């Protein structure tokens, strides 16, 4: 959007979208502020994308730069694919918040600061020698200085709240003002506050008062012609019922949904690790659905108990991130050998080793595809957006149960924490997951193999007459007994290979997301690069570039037509948040040569980066 115009000229055309960034101290309630603003926009008919930007310290000293918490949201009237490369509006509740977020702004952005927080002490803490409000370094931005802290105290002064409680309402004051800035309705937030603080109505009241005061403050600014609210177009969303969902939530719900679809209990065993932990947290609240969650002593135990769950007849699942995944690899091999279905979610973070645990990356693809001892093929699929984590997880479970194999679902820290509106699926319309191969018919059944899927039967303890032994040693192809026979090992190795590779035939064929076969360049993405690639290709196509977007869900094996589809393009460009891992996997699958576009800064690609890469490789076709 062109923010200046919109806020300053009364009759400016409503921009397509806007990006707002809220920032303040960890204790300032920035995340609540951001998600309430997001909801209000969504309910106003915008498509949105949000991302919380937590500090990596649990609670850094107040006012410090590394204690700044931020929340970015893009909302607007077209399919919103990313949170926006840079913000149009920054709401900064203290100097540190201003300092660390200045890089995240478009030129000419609107900056709203809480002037009251620009005290000598906080300026110093943020490392400012001189106040940026005075030093001229904000020239080029439109700065609105408001004494938010004091105005908040004033707004609640009549109410029965302590000073501390009153100060805590600051974020809702800022929200009220932001609502005014974009002409948004306060209704949903007010009822949210009333519900949230049902037990402490005075807190609800104070926050509502602050919210209203912030809004009213905007109206006086408007009256004094200082600034106008900006109307953002609303989106044409498909009709339906929506909710906001983060990737972690969607993945958790995907697991529970998959269990329901196959009529088994979900047995989710996990060990906390950033950024995968919220999946455990979400599932722990689903005990009323019969979900079993188990916080194991480590990732090895988590994987092994997930195997135990599947062995016992539940749908076993686990979630972790790179370092934890490393620990699970031995046990994943056991699941392959025992032919038991387990869904393994890896919410990737920046590596190697502990790396940058709170930053995002896609660098566990090698590990997912190749990272086991022995010839141990395992299907790998990837989710592309927060809500897609639901579909990808259900799909992973479907493959796991159908083929009796562990399946790895890759997401990442960005997807896990980002949120978007999600048209709520109806469970009754989702295809059930068939566990029919779990109906043994004769004595050989524990090791009977479905001739199409090559899956063995899922026979769990408790069934009389089908007692059998499984384990990590090679088994005889028929009897299932331990076998050291050379030819049998060859055949079983082939079966394990074929089982995963035959899957290729069942996978939906690769589609071109945007553009056409035979375009000059295809940008090939996977996982969370979906957003920026999609938007960049859309923009560049609009400018006349012959560029297509192809996005992979199935990382291993690839759908049958994949290399053929890719071979129609003159060039392939693979932006990924790693040093070029998909490029390797594609080479291995004999796909046409692709150019890598690695980015390992711990941050998602921007649209501009991808646009620039496209522009550098193509001439405009008119």
């Amino acid at each position, binding site marked *: 959007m062109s923010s200046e115009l919109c806020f300053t000229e009364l009759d400016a055309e409503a921009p397509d979208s806007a990006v707002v960034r809220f920032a303040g101290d960890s204790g300032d309630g920035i995340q609540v502020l951001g998600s309430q603003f997001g909801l209000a926009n969504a309910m106003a008919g915008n498509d949105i994308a949000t991302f919380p930007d937590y500090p990596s310290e649990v609670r850094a000293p107040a006012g410090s730069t590394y204690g700044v918490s931020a929340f970015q949201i893009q909302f607007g009237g077209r399919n919103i694919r990313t949170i926006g490369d840079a913000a149009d509006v920054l709401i900064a509740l203290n100097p540190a918040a201003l300092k660390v977020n200045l890089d995240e702004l478009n030129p000419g952005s609107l900056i709203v600061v809480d002037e009251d927080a620009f005290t000598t002490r906080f300026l110093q803490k943020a490392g400012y020698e001189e106040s940026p409000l005075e030093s001229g370094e904000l020239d080029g931005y439109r700065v609105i200085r408001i004494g938010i802290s004091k105005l908040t105290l004033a707004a609640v002064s009549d109410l029965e709240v302590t000073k501390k409680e009153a100060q805590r309402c600051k974020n809702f004051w800022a929200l009220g003002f932001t609502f005014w800035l974009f002409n948004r309705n306060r209704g949903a937030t007010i009822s949210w506050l009333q519900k949230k603080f049902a037990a402490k109505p005075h807190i609800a009241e104070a926050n509502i008062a602050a919210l209203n005061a912030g809004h009213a403050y905007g109206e006086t600014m408007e009256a004094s012609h200082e600034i106008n609210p900006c109307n953002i177009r609303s989106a044409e969303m*498909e009709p339906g019922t929506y909710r906001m969902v983060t990737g972690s939530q969607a993945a958790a719900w995907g697991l529970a949904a998959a269990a329901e679809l196959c009529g088994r209990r979900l047995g989710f*065993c996990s060990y906390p690790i950033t950024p995968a932990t919220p999946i455990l947290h979400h599932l722990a609240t689903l005990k*009323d659905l019969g979900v079993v969650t188990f916080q*194991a002593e480590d990732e090895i135990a988590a994987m092994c108990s997930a195997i*135990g769950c599947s062995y016992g007849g539940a749908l076993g699942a686990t979630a972790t991130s790179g370092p934890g995944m490393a620990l699970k690899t031995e046990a994943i091999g056991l699941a392959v050998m025992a032919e038991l279905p387990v869904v393994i979610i890896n919410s990737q973070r920046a590596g190697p080793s502990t790396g940058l645990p709170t930053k995002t990356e896609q660098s566990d693809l090698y590990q997912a595809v190749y990272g086991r001892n022995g010839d141990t093929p395992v299907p790998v699929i990837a989710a592309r957006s927060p809500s897609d984590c639901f579909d990808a997880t259900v799909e992973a479970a479907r493959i796991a149960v159908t083929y009796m194999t562990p399946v790895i679902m890759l997401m990442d820290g960005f997807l896990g924490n980002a949120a978007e509106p999600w048209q709520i699926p109806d469970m009754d319309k989702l295809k059930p997951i068939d566990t029919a191969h779990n109906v043994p018919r004769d004595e050989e059944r524990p090791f009977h193999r479905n001739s199409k899927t090559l899956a063995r039967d899922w026979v769990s303890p408790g069934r009389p007459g089908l007692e059998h*032994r499984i*384990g990590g040693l090679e088994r005889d192809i028929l009897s299932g007994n331990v076998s050291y026979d050379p030819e049998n090992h060859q055949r079983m190795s082939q079966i394990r290979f074929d089982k995963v590779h035959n899957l290729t035939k069942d996978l939906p064929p690769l589609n071109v997301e945007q553009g056409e076969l035979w375009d000059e360049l295809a940008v090939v993405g996977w996982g969370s690069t979906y957003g920026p690639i999609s938007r960049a290709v859309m923009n560049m196509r609009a400018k006349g570039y012959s560029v297509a977007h192809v996005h992979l869900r199935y990382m291993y094996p690839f759908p049958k037509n994949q290399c053929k589809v890719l071979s129609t393009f003159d060039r392939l460009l693979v932006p990924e948040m790693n040093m070029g891992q998909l490029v390797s996997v594609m080479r291995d699958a004999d796909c046409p040569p692709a150019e890598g576009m690695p980015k390992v800064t711990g941050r998602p690609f921007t649209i501009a980066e991808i646009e620039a890469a496209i522009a550098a490789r193509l001439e405009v076709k008119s």
Partner: protein
Amino acid sequence: MNIQDPANPPLKDKDYASNQEVRWCAGCGDYAIIKAVQKTLAAVGAKKENTVFVSGIGCSSRFPYYIDSYGFHGIHGRAPAIASGTLLANPDLDVWVITGDGDGLSIGGNHLLHILRRNFNCQILLFNNGTYALTKGQYSPTSLKGQRSPSSPMGVIDPPLEPAQFAIGAGARFVARAIDTQQKQLVDILTQAYHHQGAAFVEIFQNCVVFNDGMTESFAAKSTASDAQVMLEEGKPLTFGKNGERALKCDPGKLNLKVYDVGGEEDDGHCEILHDPSNRTLAFLLAQLELPDQPLATGIIYNDPSPSYEVETYKQIEQAQENSQRRRMNDVLKQGFTWTI
């Protein structure tokens, strides 16, 4: 559990043997242990289909192949974790965990610790032969100081871990010690372990004839057993010796157990102790007894049940279900802030 059903006559020991050829060395203590387990299964009337043996890796961990029930030969050290998952999926199963001193106390020490602490309802049989037998005789965490092995050619320098003390320290609620060759006691312990609700830990001294032959000699040989062992029985005094001529009593100043001669000078009626398996301190003291000056305690050292993990898990689930209207994922998905376009 032991009700007779004419259509299904009770199973005998042998009925629990699988069709697989047993592949332990001739003379291995594992044979005696599997016999005792089969006897126990028959005695308690275990249903094959509800019985699951989960093991790690080692000679001992081949055990599940030889029992005609469900069996899972896992990976090294991880049997407790697999067993935990199995019980979470199906708390009605009778799960036995089979492990060795290497499998359970070296690579798998942490899982053993946590399954004991959490108190999953299963029987854990740790075959202690003081060696990594399957990998050809390296020393293990229970090997004695000075023991020579291919990886300790000049003798082990690690002080050994004592399994029962470890288990008590970990919070186990049932801790027993047995010896492969003492069948009657072993079957008795296994039977009580089976009936115990929660994790029942049984250390079984097992002679490895190839790599650590004679390990049990000093306390299990016919000639020395009664002098070298105090065989624990609930409510009975801690006597030992061929004719029960010696006993243990408390040494209150030192808080230790001391040996005295029955009928001797010190047999003054003071500080005598009857075995109380629910006394955790006594359990720790008994587990600490060390040869040659003291007898080794065998039998049920500690037994003080508390709720088992999977039972508590399902209690919470039931409670959650009672307090909630949600029944299906549709209810979950639609809950909270939604809007319709």
